[in-house]
């Protein structure tokens, strides 16, 4: 550690990015509030949930460089915690008769369920992670995928506790945008705090130079485990809130579809960057939404214009290919969005923590 840097520089390296990202999220929330349209409001809620999921993924993948296909399993764990703890006891007893008595009688508010979901997911992340974090590279990725398949199988077949493949309904629906905004902002701050923490820096060092990091005393499985547990908690909270956003859960909601959507958003945004995670979601979700409006038809003067159904999926694919052609490391690359760079950070521009992170396409 060298000289003490100036206050502005410290701020830029620490708090500016999450604040800017939060402001961006607040703008979306205000747009939903100002528009007063319920479907649009629901769309913004969906965007915030995706922000939570992708930030959860970033916390682990971005910092460790290990691609995880299994994080949606934690969202599944969280989603079912919301079902177990918030559905009215009477409805629970017919849908999920195998729940223990204390859980059967429990009826807590949605925010408490989100915290409980985060805790439950974090616990299982600790259990799974203790084993999985010893693996590296592709082996770790495949093992996380196996974890996803395992959780999905259990939740699809444990009839008395998860109602198997049936939808679990009766979860109180929360349709105001604010709780989701708060959760998204909290997850952004949590992810940021972790990535500038001692463990976060050590983990990124291990990502870029595992041998050197280990030689410098970084216990790689341990720092990975910390990231895994934190990201599991974020995913768990996201899963619980997802359940509250539509009022039901099924195991297949939290499976391959969601895994690939969230992973592709992270890849497009930039895997090594928190700003990338958030901005990737915002850009892709906005694009999806605009294309859907065009599919539904837009009146231009006298005539109306509509894209044929299915164009949205194709156009989204094309845009993603183009982004990755011209910015292979994603929109943000490995850089963060700070006050100094109001538009997109150029690859090679000084990031907030370039001490431990060489810029470029390292992930």
């Amino acid at each position, binding site marked *: 550690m060298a000289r003490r840097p100036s206050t502005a520089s410290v701020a830029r390296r620490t708090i500016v990015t999450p604040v800017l990202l939060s402001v*961006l999220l607040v*703008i*979306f929330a205000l*747009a939903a509030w*100002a*528009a*007063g*349209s*319920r*479907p*649009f*409001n*629901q*769309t913004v809620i*969906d965007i915030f949930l995706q922000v939570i999921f992708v930030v959860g993924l970033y916390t682990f993948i971005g910092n460790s460089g290990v691609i995880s296909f299994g994080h949606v399993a934690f969202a599944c764990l969280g989603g079912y915690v919301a079902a177990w703890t918030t559905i009215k006891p009477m409805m629970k007893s*017919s849908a999920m008769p195998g729940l223990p008595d204390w859980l059967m009688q429990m009826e807590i508010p949605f925010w408490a369920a989100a915290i409980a979901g985060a805790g439950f997911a974090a616990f299982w992340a600790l259990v799974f992670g203790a084993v999985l974090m010893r693996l590296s590279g592709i082996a770790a990725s495949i093992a996380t995928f196996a974890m996803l398949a395992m959780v999905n199988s259990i939740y699809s077949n444990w009839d008395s506790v998860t109602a198997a*493949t*049936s*939808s679990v*309904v009766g979860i109180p*629906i929360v*349709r105001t945008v604010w709780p989701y905004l708060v959760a998204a902002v909290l997850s952004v701050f949590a992810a940021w705090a972790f990535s500038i923490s001692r463990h976060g820096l050590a983990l990124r060092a291990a990502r870029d130079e595992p041998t050197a990091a280990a030689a410098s005393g970084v216990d790689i499985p341990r720092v990975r485990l910390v990231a895994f547990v934190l990201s599991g908690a974020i995913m768990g909270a996201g899963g619980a809130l*997802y359940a509250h*956003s*539509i*009022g*039901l859960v*099924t195991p297949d*909601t939290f499976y391959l579809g969601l895994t690939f959507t969230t992973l592709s958003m992270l890849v497009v945004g930039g895997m090594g960057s928190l700003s990338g995670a958030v*901005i990737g979601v*915002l*850009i892709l979700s*906005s694009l999806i*939404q*605009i294309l859907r*409006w065009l*599919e*539904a038809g*837009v009146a231009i003067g006298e005539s109306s214009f509509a894209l044929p*159904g*299915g164009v949205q999926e194709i156009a989204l694919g094309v845009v993603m290919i183009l982004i990755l052609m011209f910015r292979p490391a994603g929109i943000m690359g490995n850089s963060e969005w700070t006050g100094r760079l109001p538009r997109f950070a150029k690859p090679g521009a000084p990031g907030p923590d370039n001490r431990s992170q060489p810029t470029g396409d390292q992930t």
Partner: protein
Amino acid sequence: MKRLTAILAATTCLATAAFADDERIIVGFATAETGFMQAYDKPAQDAAMIRISEINEAGGLLGKQIEVVNADTKTDRAEGAKAGLSVIDQGADMVVVSCDYDFGAPAALAAESSGLISFFLCAESIKAGIQGVGPNSFSASVLAAVQGATMAEWSYNKKGARTYYRLLDTWTEYNKGICDGFDYMLPKLADAKLVGEDTFLNEDASIAAQITRIKSLPEEPDAIMLCTMMPGAVSAIKQIRAAGINSMILNGSGVDGSYWLSAVPDLSNFFVPVQGSIYGDDPNPEVTAFNAKYKEVTGGDPSTQYVYPGYVMIDVWAKAVERAGTTETSAVVAELEKMNGEPTLFGPRTFTSELHHQNQARYLIVETNAGKPGVVDEWTISEPIPVADLMD
């Protein structure tokens, strides 16, 4: 990024220029226009549109023309919730949701929380209604359990079947529902005997093990209750017949249609319960007339009986609105719940304050003989299946 947000905000303002209007009656379809559910939703929705245009041609409902608004669920649950909210914002008085309970529920829950009536196009689970959505939700079809119970009772009485084998595909709730109804009915039939039971999965390429167990019975059972659905049903049926088992095969409505029969040439002794016949031999000539109209509108014949519930849905709802003199939810629900054996083109319909679904219904029995399906009989189970038995 700011510019994007501005565009987004501007587009939203354009998109929300819809207001609820008392001068109009609006039916909102939050159904799948894309994705795999479209194959189920579209035909039933077409049938619903036929009933709507009939009503409009006859002068409308309460003197007003029925208008329709749509939103696509994209066969996705989260999109389903948005589609539900979207048609509600466009002023829907009644919300029609996807055929399947899992995919229709998010939109139905949105309608329920806005105090509106929701109708599942053709869901056959008891949850599609009061039990899984709330007191303002209905289904236009008949419970899967009724299909299993109908086949058991009919085959016992009309075909003299006494020994049954139960083969369940555990893939979906629908399949389990058929077998639940069969299980409910069988003990009520004196000296009917279950000689064996087995399960398989829709995606199983081979059910050789299950077939071996049927073959090793001392005597071939009179009937096999096959609780399955497409696409796995075809392979299961083919394998059963290829193994030389000639017992009658009893099914749910899910295997109705002739589109797959070429895969099992000369299939015989095969029975399916249907709400109406797509084969042009319905005892009610009006059904055949409806089929012709459907062909005129959509360019093709109905491919399965799942077209019909869409028609029934608009029919019973419009009658209830007419009787209530308003589209106001509680009044219409009260009128719907008064319906007891209400005649429709496809058999009588009953709704009660306990069940917004059919736990007893008239079914036509379609027999496939030498690869040719046709109506041979009709049957209504002797008593409704109690709600308590449906809930477990």
